[in-house]
Structure formats: structure tokens, C-alpha cells
């Protein structure tokens, strides 16, 4: 029973990792840029939601706050792409890596200035309520996280498979130049991809905040989501969610069953193992050009 309880908590955590990883993968697929600031964008999303919802700030209803924070983060990431990232269009991958790392530091600093470094928690309607299945206790917050992730993943799937914009995004991610020749506005598409990734990050941040407390260093969680994205194979959307679940489940398991000290390195150790034995991830999508 203990095992099942850990599993449920792990799945809920894993959903958050998976959603952040989804943001990485979206941006990587579309623009071949790895956004190291994504964890910090998620942190920002969580704080924006907190600003809308909590009573000492604006005190809006939770659902309205969630929607508003998603919109705010979408606009923020769109502008971020237009103002900063687009300057590096066509520059080596490495510059974007360094740029986003630096941006992460800047975001963390401003979040610290605005919201302070004390851990804060989001006021949600789910807090403290639980339901019991036999011996397993499932918190409303955990159930909310899992359901929201399923809805979001399904929505994204439909968006990419069915809508005109989604298909255009897929085309731009597979071959920018060819997509451009086909009349797809590649630059606007990559801004929109950033906006979509920002919205996912906002949801992930809000979900995380509804489960526990947040502070500006929350962005470092993005590194675990990275491991998730790598495990899933860096170009696969279902892979990202799956990798997130693996990381989420392994973490509490390692804490419970492995000797102390090993639990922190478990997610990264799994990632390194995947890199050694299945170099392209479990859901290989990206292959390198061969001469």
C-alpha cells in the first residue's frame, strides 16, 4: 500500500515535470533552441497566478486567476521571443543556450525583488481536501494536477493534429526554409510556439503551486524537467510527458527505498543511463544528418 501511495504522489509530481518538459520540447522542435530559462518561466507563471488568486494581492477566483495567468505568460513569452530571442535567429545553438541561462538569472532576480524570497503558497479550492480509495489517500490537488495534465496534453494533441496553425507549426519545425517557401510566416510561428510553451509553463507552474509552496529558486526544477525531456527523446511530445512521469515516480521511490544521499541523483542517473543505452531517448524522433 505504501508503494501505491508513493506511486500516486509520484504521478502527480511527474505530470508537472512532464508539462515543463513539454515546453522545452515544443521550443526545441520548432526553433532548435534549447530554452534553459523554461524552469524560470514556469516559476514566473506560478507567481503570476499567485498574484491574481491570493487574498493579499488581487483575490480573484482560482479559475479566473489560472486563465489570466496563462494569458499573461503567453503574451510575455511571445514578446520575449520577439524582443530578445529573435535577434539570434540563425546564430549557433550555443548562443541561445547561454542567452537563456542568463535570462533565467534575470527572471529569478526580478521575481525575488517583486515577490520576495520567502516560500509562499497558492490559495486553491482543493487545498487540504482528500478522497480515500481503500488505503490510498488521494488529495484533491493531486487529482487536479493529473486531470489537468491529461486535458492539456489532449488539447495540445488536437491543436497540432487538427488546426491549421498547429500543422503550420509542425511544418516550420521540420524544415524552416521549406516552410518559408510554402508561405508559412516562420518568424511569427516561432513567436507563437514560444507563447504556447509559455502558456504550458504557466499551467505547470500553477499546478505545482497548488501542491506546495513556491519561491524564486523554483526554476531549478526545470533541470529535472530537462532530464525528463531527454529520457523521452528530445523531440517527442508524448515522450516528454512519459519522461516526466518516470522522473516523478522514481524520485519518491528512491527516497523511500534507496540509501540516503542517492535520491537526489536518481533522476540524473536515469537520464545518463538512457543517454548511454538509448542515445536518442526512449521515443527517438530526432536523427542527425549523415554525410
Amino acid at each position, binding site marked *: 500500500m505504501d508503494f501505491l501511495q508513493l506511486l500516486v504522489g509520484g504521478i502527480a509530481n511527474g505530470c508537472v515535470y512532464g508539462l515543463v518538459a513539454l515546453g522545452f520540447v515544443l521550443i526545441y522542435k520548432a526553433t532548435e533552441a534549447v530554452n534553459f530559462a523554461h524552469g524560470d518561466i514556469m516559476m514566473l507563471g506560478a507567481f503570476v497566478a499567485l498574484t491574481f488568486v491570493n487574498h493579499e494581492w488581487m483575490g480573484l477566483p482560482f479559475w479566473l486567476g489560472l486563465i489570466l495567468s496563462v494569458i499573461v505568460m503567453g503574451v510575455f513569452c511571445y514578446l520575449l521571443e520577439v524582443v530578445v530571442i529573435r535577434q539570434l535567429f540563425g546564430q549557433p*545553438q550555443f548562443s541561445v543556450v547561454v542567452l537563456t541561462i542568463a535570462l533565467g538569472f534575470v527572471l529569478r532576480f526580478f521575481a525575488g525583488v517583486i515577490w520576495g524570497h520567502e516560500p509562499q503558497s497558492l490559495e486553491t479550492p482543493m487545498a487540504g481536501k482528500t478522497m480515500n480509495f481503500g488505503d490510498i489517500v488521494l488529495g484533491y490537488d493531486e487529482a487536479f494536477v493529473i486531470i489537468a495534465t491529461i486535458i492539456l496534453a489532449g488539447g495540445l494533441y488536437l491543436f497540432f493534429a487538427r488546426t491549421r496553425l498547429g500543422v503550420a507549426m509542425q511544418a516550420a519545425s521540420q524544415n524552416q526554409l521549406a516552410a518559408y517557401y510554402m508561405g508559412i510566416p516562420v518568424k511569427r510561428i516561432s513567436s507563437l510556439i514560444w507563447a504556447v510553451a509559455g502558456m504550458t509553463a504557466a499551467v505547470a507552474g500553477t499546478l505545482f503551486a497548488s501542491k506546495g509552496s513556491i519561491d524564486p529558486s523554483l526554476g531549478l526544477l526545470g533541470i529535472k524537467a530537462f532530464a525528463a525531456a531527454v529520457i523521452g527523446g528530445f523531440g517527442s511530445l508524448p515522450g516528454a510527458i512519459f519522461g516526466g512521469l518516470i522522473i516523478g515516480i522514481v524520485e519518491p521511490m528512491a527516497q523511500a527505498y534507496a540509501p540516503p544521499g542517492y535520491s537526489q541523483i536518481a533522476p540524473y542517473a536515469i537520464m545518463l543511463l538512457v543517454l*548511454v543505452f538509448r542515445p536518442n531517448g526512449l521515443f527517438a524522433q530526432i536523427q*542527425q544528418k549523415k554525410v
Partner: protein
Amino acid sequence: MRIHFKTGYGQDIRLFEDSREAVQNALLILAAVSAPWWLDEYMLGEVTYVLIWILAGLGLMILAGHTGQPSLGHGAFLACGAYMEVILLEAGVPFVLSLPLAGLFAGVVGAVVAIPALRMSGIYLAIATLAFGIMTEDIIILLTPWTGGIEGVFTPTISLLGIEIDRYGDPDRFYWLCLFVVILITVGYKNILRSPTGRAFTAIRDSEVSARAMGVNVARMKTLAFGLSCFVTGLAGALLAHYLTAFNYEAFLILISIQLLLMVTVGGLGSIHGAYYGAIVIGLLPVVIATLRQEISDFLGAGNSSVPGMETAIFAVIIVAFIIYEPLGIYGRWTKIRIWLELFPLARKDMFRRQKSYLKTERMK
């Protein structure tokens, strides 16, 4: 404007382009060697610290600047070098041997870490090294019997061929030791760059696909670059151990790795000068910010209001500005200014305009 009329291949790969450059370098070395006589003890300590950062930066520059493989976990190799140095010295190995051995250990660890990640495109390497960098603190604590864990370790005093070198007792000697290592590595670095190995590194940086087409064994060269890079960083780590004299896992947090990477970027990727400029900026920035903050709070008549994380944020903003406006860093800007001066009335406005480009992907899907 100096014009070099080259009549042979030998001239093309000379260590110094002309006698003027050789003289400049000789003067610089002379000034550096004589520093203990015209600097006070505090400044000398700071300069020694900058020298160690230069060494670490040179290590990362081989990998990030010349082979184009960003490593986000070089702090881990700094730690490898530092702990190995202490372990070897405590085991009674003389310093002459322990320093290169500590570097070598870091180099081997680096090459082993690199092998799995090298089979894939560059970004996986960045992530694998990032994971390695994050795991460092946990691994150090797990290896408590050797590393001292949370309590940390004390570095024994160096005894080099019968001469005692203590960081606080004889700062001059320690400074000269660091300077010697830095000069040695810089010369070695320049030599590698003009050999086929160095050319292969640069080819991989510019396009992996083309390098492979030209017959470069990409995976082997990347592993070699990684090994060399970690060797140099390991040496820096060993010297850092002597500089700190007592340290624990907190000296090698992931921030150190990221700071290293940002340092070489600001200095100028792909140039040896860049590692020097970057380290100088890193070394001086905290001092400058502290002074400025004091000035501003004096001017406003307010109390000394310190905002946590301010230094990192200012540094990050500097990086963002450099990446967008001057990707070649301080060295690139300096080169442009120098060329402008040399050409003085004849420089054209568009001479350094960047070409427009689109995403050149190296992947299939």
C-alpha cells in the same frame, strides 16, 4: 595596418604573427612576473585568483570556444582536480607529480563522461554535463571518506623541490607558481591550435557534417577535446585547492560551472584572449558593483540597501547584451576597435555588419 606577406606555410603557423607581437607578449610576461614588487599583498591575492580562473577558462575555451561543445558542468572537473590534489598530497605524493596527476584524473573522468553523450548532437552533451555538474555536490557528499563531505578538507602546504610555498605565508611564490602554470598552458594551447588536432577542433565547431566529410573522426576528436579541456580545468582545480586552503562541496556548486561558461562567453568565444578578459571581468565585477552601490547609496543619502542576487543579475544582463550585440565578446569588440584605429580614416561603416542567416539545421527531422 600591418601587412604580412607570407611566402611559406611555416609563416602561417608561427606562434607570433610578427616580431611586434612577440615583443608585446614578452613585455606582458615581464610585467606579470614583476607584479609582486609593485602590487600590495591583497591585490596580489586577487590577481592570483584571477589567474586560476584564467586557467579554468582556458580549459573551457578549448571545449566551448574551439570545439563548439558547450559544457555546463565544468565545475565538476574543477572539483575532481581539487579533491584529487588533496588526496594525492596527503598520500605523500610530491607536488611536482600530484599537480599533473590531479589534472590527468579530471581529464580521464571528463573523457569517460563525454563518451556516451558524444554520439549525439551537441545539445545532449550540454545536458549530460549539466546533470553531471548538478550531481557533483551529492557525489562529493556520498564520497565522504575521501572528500571530507560537508566538513571539507584542508589542503597541505606545497613543497616544491625543497621550497615551501604557502598561500598566505609566501603569496609571491604561490603567485609565480600559478603564473608559470598559466603561461605553460597558454603556450601549449597555442601549439595545439596550430596543429592538425586544433584545426580538426575548429572544423567540428563550424560544421560537424562538413568535418566528418573532410575525414575528421568527430567522436574521437570531441572526446580528445573534452579530455584536454578537463585536464586544464583539473589543473585549475588543484591550484584552487591551494588557494582556498580549506574547502568543502560548497566551493563547487552548479553556479560555478555556469559562471565559468558565462565568463568565456563574455571574454570572447574562440580566442585565447577571451579566457583572460572574461576572468578579469569576473574578478573585478564584484569589486566594481560594491563600489558603485556604495557611491549610489551615499549619493541618495539612503542606507546601504543591498538586494540579494544583484551581482548575478547584473552579470546576466551583461551577458544578454553581449550575446545579442557582440557575440564575439570583449575580444571581438577589441579587435574591431583595433582594426578601426589601424585603418583610421578609411574604415567603412558596414565593415563588420553581420550577415543575415536562417537556421542551418544539422538534424533530419
